[in-house]
């Protein structure tokens, strides 16, 4: 198509590329090579800088060996993965939000009038508050006005408003909102504990009034819910028309056993671990045997659906673990309730700091680009598929598992890989702005570790080694995710 000799075409192409590739070389390629080289040296910011020219020593694998023996590295490695447990919930949340939004989005939008109405109501209620002098009950007036405004504007705009409000936390998420959440989590003056305190007081009062009903009731409810989840999972795995292969089925069958193993490990009870493993093995065997035999081709086909099962397990296992904890702790609740329940001190508490960060991250992640991508994916599913499914009398859950979920698989794969990459190197801003990595290092992630080692202690060589380890990890996990993501996604 293009005229001219190859040299001339190359020159033209390069001319357009030049402003980009110069910077690409200077700030990406050269640093890449430099960083790789640094990982094998003892480069220290205190000894090797523009004022000191001490010779940089090549130390071979010493940085990596040191890393594997560094207890802080392993602690932060664990923290990073613990914080990433929120990722499946964030993805599930985005999907649910997108599904709900497509249901509200059918009405024609009347954005203009709705915006005017919303602005007027907000201004009016603000004026009322300012003039009224804001006594304490006025806060309910405020909440009521906000809710009414959102509801009316939402009905008028057919979901556009909800989408805007869902996306807002993600758009503004940065140090500013992290600082805001730090104040929200304040155990004394923050609104979260302000809202929690009466709830906990009510629960404690209820426990004191009827200790035995609660001691029996709570474990019963938790156990019932747990059994319900297990039954649902078993039914899903057994239904003859799931697309998952035997490997995926076995993985899915491990779900009920995992919380047992978790609990046993937590209690440090080796007998319980053994029992858990036994249950686990039996569960897998039973589940695979229980399934109708089917012929499978190559190993990859046998592993089909592994991504779905794995993702689902990441959501179900924490839920089951919590429910199991409810069963286990139920009996001792009345004793605990005698002194009343204190709301957690969130960021100041070793155990609660990570969940607090995860909750905030969830708030910012539900209405993110992931939700927008899911919305785009949902709108590109042909309506005829649902019509055909309706003709065949498909239930809503069948419609979801056989149409929506498989057709969204490419989107899910994309956002889980992106989430993985961001999650592994994330957490720095949050930790720095909210907790400074504390309490006792509970929220120090690998990225924060690299910052401390590289820029506070000054060991740039060591920090580079950790960064490269992280890169290899990102690469391997993305590759595994891509390979076993979902066979629909890879088609």
């Amino acid at each position, binding site marked *: 198509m293009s005229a001219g000799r190859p040299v001339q075409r190359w020159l033209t*192409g390069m001319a357009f590329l030049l402003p980009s590739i110069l910077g690409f070389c200077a*700030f990406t390629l*050269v640093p890449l090579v430099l960083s790789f080289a640094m990982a094998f040296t003892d480069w220290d910011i205190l000894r090797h800088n523009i004022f000191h020219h001490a010779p940089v020593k090549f130390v071979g694998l010493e940085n990596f060996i040191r890393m594997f023996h560094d207890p802080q590295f392993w602690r932060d490695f664990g923290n990073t993965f613990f914080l990433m447990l929120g990722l499946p919930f964030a993805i599930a949340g985005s999907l649910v939000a997108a599904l709900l939004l497509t249901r509200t989005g059918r009405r024609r939008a009347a954005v203009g009038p709705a915006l005017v109405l919303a602005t007027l109501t907000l201004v009016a209620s603000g004026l009322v508050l300012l003039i009224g*002098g804001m006594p304490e009950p006025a*806060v309910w007036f405020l909440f009521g006005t906000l*809710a009414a405004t959102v509801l009316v504007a939402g009905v008028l705009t057919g979901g556009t408003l909800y989408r805007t409000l869902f996306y807002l936390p993600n758009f503004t998420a940065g140090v*500013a909102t992290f600082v805001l959440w730090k104040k929200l989590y304040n155990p004394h003056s923050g609104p979260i504990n302000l809202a929690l305190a009466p709830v906990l007081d009510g629960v404690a009062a209820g426990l004191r009034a009827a200790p035995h009903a609660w001691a029996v009731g709570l474990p019963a409810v938790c156990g019932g819910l747990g059994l319900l989840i297990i039954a649902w999972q078993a039914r899903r795995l057994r239904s003859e028309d799931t697309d998952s292969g035997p490997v995926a089925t076995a993985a899915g069958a491990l779900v009920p056993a995992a919380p047992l193993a978790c609990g046993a490990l937590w209690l440090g009870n080796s007998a319980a671990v053994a029992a858990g493993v036994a249950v686990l093995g039996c569960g897998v065997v039973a589940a695979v045997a229980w399934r109708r035999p089917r012929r499978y081709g190559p190993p990859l086909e046998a592993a089909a659906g592994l991504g779905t099962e794995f993702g689902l397990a990441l959501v179900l296992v924490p839920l089951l673990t919590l429910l199991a904890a409810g069963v286990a702790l139920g009996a001792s609740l009345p004793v605990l309730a005698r002194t009343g329940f204190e709301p957690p001190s969130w960021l100041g508490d070793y155990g609660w700091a990570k969940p607090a960060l995860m909750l905030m991250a969830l708030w910012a992640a539900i209405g993110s680009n992931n939700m927008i991508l899911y919305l785009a994916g949902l709108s590109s599913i042909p309506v005829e598929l649902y019509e055909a499914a309706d003709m065949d009398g498909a239930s809503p859950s069948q419609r979801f598992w056989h149409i929506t979920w498989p057709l969204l698989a490419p989107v899910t794969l994309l956002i889980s890989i992106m989430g993985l990459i961001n999650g592994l190197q994330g957490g720095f801003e949050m930790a*720095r702005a909210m907790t400074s990595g504390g309490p006792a290092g509970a929220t120090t992630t690998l990225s924060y570790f690299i910052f401390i080692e590289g820029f506070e202690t000054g060991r740039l060589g060591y920090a580079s080694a950790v960064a490269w380890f992280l890169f290899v990890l990102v690469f391997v996990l993305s590759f595994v995710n891509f390979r076993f993501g979902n066979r629909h996604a890879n088609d």
Partner: protein
Amino acid sequence: MPTTEPASPPAPSAPVRPPGRFDGLGLHGLMTVLSLLMILPFAWMVLASLKTLAEAGEPAWLPKAAQWGNYLEVFQVIPFLRFGANSLVIAGWVTLLQVFTSALAAYSFARLEWPGRDRLFFLYLGTMMLPGLVMVIPNFQIMMHYRMVDSYLGLVLPPVYSALGAAGGAFGTFLLRQFMLGIPRALDEAAEMDGASKWRIFWDVILPLSRPGVVTLAIFTFMGNYHSFFWPLVMMKTVDKYTLPVGLLFFDSEHGQATHLLMAAVTMSVLPLILIFVFLQRQLIRGIQLGAVKG
């Protein structure tokens, strides 16, 4: 197979899906509750910014009387305008340079044919997988070597190309290339017939037609760099050059108890974002979706 079924009319007025249990007011009620959860932190932020110092230590939502003076006080306590201007100028320059260089590169990758093009493009793509953290340390070394630490140039140039917190130039090139591939080739061939140069085709045909992509990339880049924290934190030594995220944190530690002032400052740094978003959200969301459908 010729069907002789009696034409079962497809019931023109029947809804595509039978309305579920949640449709109607119930669904809207649920969405309202969820939306409130999303915006209540912002409501608390504004209310807390209007409290007095004593009220800020109490767990109530509302101040007795709105203290608008807090907002003025922020400017006296910290150089807020300076931080804000730094943030805007730096994010603005990074955006401008990144969008421009990426658009040129994307045009070269999408439309021009030259030897080695695809291999080079894969190299670009490959670097998108690199964690920004790998890049921060050596870039800092380079900046130190050329004595650009604590300079605006050092704060602007590397993030234009490298993913130091926000997405870098490789992502921009990839995104815009996707858009440009979707533009019919007949358009630039027609322009070429008329004797237009490659530059004119780029500037007058391709660039205007990739506007949704350019706008999306610009918003993403601007936001990413406005929020960017690691790189400025590492690079900036003098308070005068702090950006908002770094400045706010400095404020948080120096005046840890002044929640009301901190919240006023946070409000002022979040408010522009909310306004940008409300006005540009349609473009932004369309851009993300177009990119996704093609990508």
